[in-house]
């Protein structure tokens, strides 16, 4: 059983996102520990990029803080490798934009992921139409390519999105950028039902989920709930001392998600 399968087998999973290197690479290592301690089932580690086009103000600022601290791609893989040494069961996903992932070649990137113990990759700006850029290299290295589905992904398009993706399907519940308002619960329920009718992998829902109450409502219908900006806000507020408040929010979210059904 892969780490993803195990993580989603226990019931609804809490998926958490923080930007790597925010505010420093060393701090991220302690924040990831806090996420696991707090009960996160899957960790998404953001790779900072100068031009995060799909992100709202909170994660944009996190990218700027991280790059401002001098975070490099090597630092991100170092963080991942340290994480894997300490946490052998929790799936780790790198999330980011295409250019830093392919700049040394997709094969190089996939090999680094494998070496560092990264289980999956989410690349915001490589849709199925451009899969050749990254997908084959990841699959050959045994790293899951996790694709996004959105409110604009209709039934005709969904098979193309699912083809070649694994790990889980990330449903972006809002047509918009990260950290904005949450979608209406009814629209999420309809969308999840629609996706689950075609998907053989778990469906996790994110964008705009900030509180344990929201997370619990989504966990009643989806296989996973993704929380990002709310955690990134805590990092912005507490900086190098963010691990404790991150652990606290994660614990509240985890309790809500795990107890939802």
């Amino acid at each position: 059983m892969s780490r993803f399968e195990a993580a989603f087998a226990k019931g609804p999973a809490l998926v958490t996102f923080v930007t790597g290197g925010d505010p420093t690479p060393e701090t991220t290592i302690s924040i990831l520990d806090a996420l696991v301690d707090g009960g996160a089932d899957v960790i998404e580690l953001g790779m900072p990029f100068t031009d995060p086009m799909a992100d709202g103000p909170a994660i944009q600022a996190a990218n700027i803080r991280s790059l401002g601290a001098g975070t490099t791609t090597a630092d991100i893989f170092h963080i991942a490798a340290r994480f894997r040494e300490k946490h052998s069961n929790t799936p780790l996903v790198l999330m980011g934009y295409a250019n830093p992932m392919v700049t040394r070649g997709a094969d190089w990137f996939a090999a680094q992921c494998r070496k560092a113990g990264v289980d999956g990759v989410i690349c915001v700006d490589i849709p199925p139409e451009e899969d050749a850029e990254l997908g084959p290299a990841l699959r050959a290295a045994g790293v899951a390519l996790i694709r996004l589905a959105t409110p604009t992904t209709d039934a005709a398009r969904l098979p193309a999105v699912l083809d070649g993706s694994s790990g889980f399907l990330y449903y972006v519940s809002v047509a918009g950028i990260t950290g904005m308002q949450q979608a209406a619960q009814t629209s999420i329920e309809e969308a999840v039902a629609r996706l689950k009718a075609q998907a053989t992998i778990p469906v996790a829902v994110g964008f705009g989920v900030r509180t344990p109450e929201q997370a619990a409502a989504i966990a009643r219908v989806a296989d996973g709930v993704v929380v990002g900006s709310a955690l990134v806000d805590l990092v912005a507020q507490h900086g190098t001392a963010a691990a404790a408040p991150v652990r606290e929010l994660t614990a509240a979210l985890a309790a809500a998600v795990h107890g939802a059904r």
Partner: protein
Amino acid sequence: MTATANSYRTQPDERGHFGQFGGRYVAETLMPLILDLEKEYTAAKADPAFKAEFDDLLEHYVGRPSPLYFAPRLTEELGGAQVWFKRDELNHTGAHKINNCIGQILLAMRMGKTRIIAETGAGQHGVATATVCARFGLPCVVFMGATDVERQKPNVFRMKLLGAEVRPVTAGAGTLKDAMNEALRDWVANVHDTFYIIGTAAGPHPYPELVRDFQSVIGKEARAQMLARTGKLPDLLVAAIGGGSNAIGLFHPFLDDSSVRMLGVEAAGYGLDGDQHAASLAGGRPGILHGNKTYLLQDADGQIVEGHSISAGLDYPGIGPEHAWLKEIGRVDYTYATDQEALDAFQLLCRTEGIIPALEPSHAIAAVKKVAPSMGKDQIILANLCGRGDKDIFSVAEHLGVDL
């Protein structure tokens, strides 16, 4: 024209690729919209009514065809090839940008979109977009880097007069790249009613193709005008390149004329030694940004480096993907001009021809200045005068140390 195996004019392929460049590197939210746009553009191209409306607006609203002008005193001063200009600076709104905006707003209306967004650097594309939005009565939001808002105040005021909302973008260095990020964020959140009028021949497919097609009116006119006036084709085409829309518009109709050489001129800022320039082909390498694969200014990790140019319109760390392909296959040569060379060329044209060019085509004139003396007097250089310099007089005065 009919596509042949040897044609340079059949790109992109059906997936929007120009060789290894171009493509559709966008978030999933935008993908269905991009596919819709492609379908609608294909239908519009085959629709005589669409072309008729486009041509009519270009003639009666924009003022096309723009003149083809032989520059006698500049030619004499340089002492070599004859220098001719395609006078796109005489268009309504003062630059070539309007050609593309007319085409895209007609597409937007065909698609039933009711709100227009755009990005702008120097403000020329923003003004052109605000203009067509006023002409057709559509609300318009223009994203502009906060730094550019400050250095291009006259254009900001023009856009406001035309009824557009100008949203300053403070992220990053507050220039064109950041404005484009913000426009993409707005678009993702408003896909149902919003059309994004991209200002240059870049972005996800089909933008590089459709912007090129709308701008190709420049080269089509110039080719016919040159044949009518001289009975032959030019020996060399020269155009400045930021994203590259005026250059591809001039070059594309000539690509299969093997006797015609072409020279694209990037902005070298303070020079290519440091990173204070905007020459993506000369100083960058292939990567992925803003929906397409192309040459980008970037560091070893693929982080994008801010460009610099005296010209806000060339101050972009990427270039249209068709130029990347034309460079790679060797059909077009690319060179660069520094801020200082552009400033010198700006003054040269003012003095010799009574034409105040924009700082963007001043880079092309700088290249003309270098190559014309080495060419024969029977040879013809055709340069694209893609914008007028009224917008630039304040920054030129500042660089010349003149207090207005």
